[in-house]
């Protein structure tokens, strides 16, 4: 992908900000947002709708290939 070098060259322009001593790491304004710990949907139709979109499933489970095999 020849565009890669051009893009990397371009974004490397940032490294030319020499002498900008005032550059310090951004400290974002953060606040904790807590939600009430309550059960919202007990009917199970959320789960049904979500499961409908799963490409490979077995019954009510998402099917995945074995990750750890025994020798």
């Amino acid at each position, binding site marked *: 992908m020849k565009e890669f070098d051009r893009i990397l060259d*371009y974004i490397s322009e940032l490294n030319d900000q020499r002498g900008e001593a005032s550059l310090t790491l951004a400290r974002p304004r953060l606040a904790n947002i807590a939600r009430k710990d309550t059960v919202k949907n007990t009917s199970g139709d959320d789960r049904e709708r979500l499961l*409908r979109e799963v490409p490979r499933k077995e019954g009510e489970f998402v099917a995945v290939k074995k990750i750890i095999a025994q020798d």
Partner: protein
Amino acid sequence: MPIDLKKMTIVKAREHLDIGDFSAFDLAMAYLDEINKKNKDINAYLEIFDDVLESAGEADQKIKAGRADPLTGIPIAIKDNILIQDKKASSASKILENYTAPYDATVISKLKKQGAILLGRTNMDEFAMGSSTENSAFGVTRNPHDCNRVSGGTSGGSAAAVGADMALAALGSDTGGSVRQPASYCGVVGLKPTYGAVSRYGLMAAVSSFDQIGPITKTVADCQIIFEAIRGVDPKDGTTISEKTYKPKQIGKNKPIIGIPRSFLNIGGIDPGVVSAFALAEDKFKAMGYEIRDIELSSNKYALPAYYILNFAEVSSNMARYDGIRYGLHIDGADGIADYGETRRAGLGREVIRRILLGTYVLSSGYYDAYYNKANMARKMITEDFLKVFESVDVIATPTAPAPAFKVGEKIDDPVSLYLEDVFTITANLTGMPAISLPFGRVEREGKNLPIGIQLIARHGDEQTLFSAGAELC
């Protein structure tokens, strides 16, 4: 009475619907007819919903009962990355081509509650990466003012739908100008609200620290109506803010003071038609009694590289969710790891893959400080620069884009020149400030009159000043 879509606005439609000049059903029919005529050439819509007339009927009952809200019966188009329960939502990607949304985005719940008519889902650059809607997996959206040109992007379908009278309004999302630039190309109004003003619950994430949902409309008054309808705190999106979070205070005694970053506009490469439209806008503001001040935004030169580093970085992590396991396309490989590779190779387009690779690179150990951290520092410097400028002005004015709509295919092999399209719009995303694009002036190219957009940026939380100054300009 006959419905003249060309002259129709939300404000006018509300009056006519409420006094019974025409029904929501009639209005929806008029839009469906227009879509039938135009969409095959423009490709603004990926799908027209099959329950449009049904919801129009429900809206009519609400209107007859005297319970109409501002958006009851108003036909609106929705960008394909915003979830509507039981409708497809593909983000114009093959990987989600057959994905059906399991729930409503908060903005959709709010529109539905008012009885707005959702017409269909609109085309976009895949996962909101691009500037021309050429990165859609389902074909480019063409500009209603010249079919040889792009509609802009990434919300190109939404802007083209409104610009071609195929919707009275639309929702888009804006990560680096994705509402404003297509609005500018298509001759309509587009707003990027203050970061956090509108809930993103149910919006597919592209760059989480930049993304905002915004309205695309024909007038500033309409834009304000949609913004008021969708804004507000949402417990489901922890980044949402209340009207009290920021307390913007105007400096100008009577009218807002407008700042123009003169040296930034003289960098070259800006189309002469855009330069003269901008000069006319400046003259008009002066004639209306606005004070104009020249301002300096020296850190602006870092904005584009910083923006794209952060964009790549956040994209690469947000796109990890498309794994072929929980939803979307699944292609079987030799083992579990190969499943990921095969699925993503088949499902994701060129620009998306390019950004995942670049994002992984800039976040990798050894390059993190040189790229990602530097970009964060630049972002902070730019924000401080803007906050300082806003101590002496109330609004910053620039063109929305450096040129009118370019031709389809013109920049497809030159990603850097496409990235430069965003030079005026990205600072509002880097700083989180609200910005609006206003249609102002035209430029003739090959016999076609192409629209130009003027952008106004305001302090955090000060959309009101954008609406008041914007309404006076156009």
